[in-house]
């Protein structure tokens, strides 16, 4: 790769001035965030312009940010109730919210440019939480067809302009969007064969949800590069006067 990811991000920002909300580089990957109203314009530019040349839509997925940064178990200090707190469920749940001030649903697009051998991640937030809508990019990349159906099925994101937005992975007649964070892991209905009625029947689930390993957020100092540097500076400044 002749161009580093940082200079590419710089160039992208200059080219798409005013279209992008953010442009970040982390782990060698470039991420841009685009307002839904400009999504189609940006995608068309990314696809059509030769110096960008993102000719493949590798992946498209929905993300539900409703519980981002929430832990089931506080890890910063000692507790007297321990494991049970995490297991007991929502009533006891402790919030350690660091959820960004963004809408709940987003679609994340992973693009690949074959001629330039480069990847790009595009994220677009759907403004309305109750009725998330995003424009369909099927006209730009035909491979978006099934991906958008999948995101609709699992997250309930409506892709405007999609010609055939049906459910794809869930059962015929399924109710709800299973990958939303408020959808229970065990589902809502179970099926069994009813010998009396001589057919398969649907019933509300009988099993109780349970947590085996509570979700916990730990701030490992090894990954907080800035803080380590700060501490080092503090130590240095403390020793130099001598």
């Amino acid at each position: 790769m002749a161009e580093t990811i940082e200079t590419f991000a710089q160039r992208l920002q200059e080219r798409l001035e005013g279209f992008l909300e953010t442009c970040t580089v982390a782990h060698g990957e470039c991420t841009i965030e685009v307002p839904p109203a400009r999504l189609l314009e940006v995608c068309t530019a990314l696809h059509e312009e030769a110096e960008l040349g993102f000719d493949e839509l590798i992946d498209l997925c929905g993300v539900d940010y409703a519980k981002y940064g929430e832990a089931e178990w506080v890890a910063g200090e000692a507790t007297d109730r321990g494991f049970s707190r995490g297991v007991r469920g929502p009533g006891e749940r402790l919030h350690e919210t660091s959820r960004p001030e963004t809408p709940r649903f987003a679609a994340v697009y992973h693009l690949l440019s074959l001629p330039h051998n480069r990847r790009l991640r595009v994220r677009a937030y759907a403004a309305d939480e109750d009725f998330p809508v995003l424009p369909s990019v099927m006209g730009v990349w035909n491979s978006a067809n099934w991906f958008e159906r999948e995101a609709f099925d699992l997250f309930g994101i409506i892709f405007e302009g999609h010609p055939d937005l049906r459910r794809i992975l869930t059962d015929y007649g399924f109710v709800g969007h299973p990958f939303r964070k408020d959808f229970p892991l065990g589902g809502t209905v179970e099926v069994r064969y009813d010998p009396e009625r001589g057919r398969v029947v649907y019933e509300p689930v009988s099993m109780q949800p349970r947590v085996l390993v509570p979700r916990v957020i730990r701030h490992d100092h090894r990954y907080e590069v800035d803080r380590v540097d700060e501490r080092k500076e503090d130590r240095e400044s403390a020793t130099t006067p001598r």
Partner: protein
Amino acid sequence: MPEIRNFTMNFGPQHPAAHGVLRLVLEMDGEVIVRADPHIGLLHRATEKLAESKPYNQSIGYMDRLDYMSMMCNEHAYVLAIERLLGVEPPLRAQYIRVMFDEITRLLNHLMWLATHAIDVGAMTVFLYCFREREDLFDCYEAVSGARMHTSYYRPGGVYRDLPDRMPQHHPSQWRSARDLKRMNRARQGSLLDFIEDFTERFPGYIDEYETLLTDNRIWKQRTVGIGVVSPERARQLAFTGPMLRGSGIEWDLRKKQPYEVYDRVDFDIPVGVNGDCYDRYLVRVEEMRQSNRIVRQCVDWLRRNPGPVVLQDHKVTPPPREEMKADMEALIHHFKLFTEGFCIPEGEAYAAIEHPKGEFGIYLVSDGANKPYRLKIRPPAFVHLGALDEMGRGHMLADCVALIGTLDIVFGDVDR
């Protein structure tokens, strides 16, 4: 004149050529396909949602069950994504082991693909031949991990354990003669690497056998040449990757273009098709088997000469050795924390992609700093390829549909997740 209407036909989900649980609703005009509407999801297990409820390491086993024809490759993408977010790199020997097993997995997958593709189109013998070789490769899996298919062998920071010094042998039994037993154990006298090397010496001859049966076979060519032609432009629009893209004449292979692990240190070539039909994709995949064989040989050679650690000695991510755990308090604490809570991954997101036998297999991982993934998205190659079946199938005969499903190389664990 009687009124002639298109009629709708149901193909699968119990059809033997549907490669699992594909339900195809075909709209037919006589014997010509007008529209194909795949109904998928019959094997949907919500792997991504399940992974959100488990510590990172407990989901490795789920990865095996995605594309159950290429188990270790799925694990590979998953651990790569974790390693990228953690910022760790496995030891060099672990990287070579991973590359070697990735290529063994590619052989496994392509053998299965060839076997089923051929039997769908009507060639019985190839099926039996391919399964003969798959047995040996499964024995390699078993020797290294204890499981023949769902191995859970790759771990963030390396692999679970080093290659065994002894290859397990077949035991005498009343069902096999002494001569058979001797023949079966002939290659199993030494270590696993000796066994793999012996296999790589035999394997090119086996590929020649398959090619003798198929490449110039009149019936095989009638069934595959000119069927399901995809132009390079359409292949890019439909996000084809892997052999499907190379069959259409685009030279693209992540092992060369975006090398991960030690693929930049091994020597191999990328076969590319010309016409983009089923026959070219067949040739590409057969040549890929020969190239994989070459890579495996180079890895065996390197692994023989370079012993060393196979897993990172960072006990915040990988458990300490058992002896150490019994003797050292610090190690015991690490062990306890890792197996009860798991490790936390710093906040961030990463997309790790590998050249899976079927195409690009990617894992998009979003972490909010917890011991479980916030969101895990699996980018399955087969899902994308199956999405193109409608376009590829239009205007073909019903019987060609079977050849198309074969050439897509789909597995429903992967499509439905």
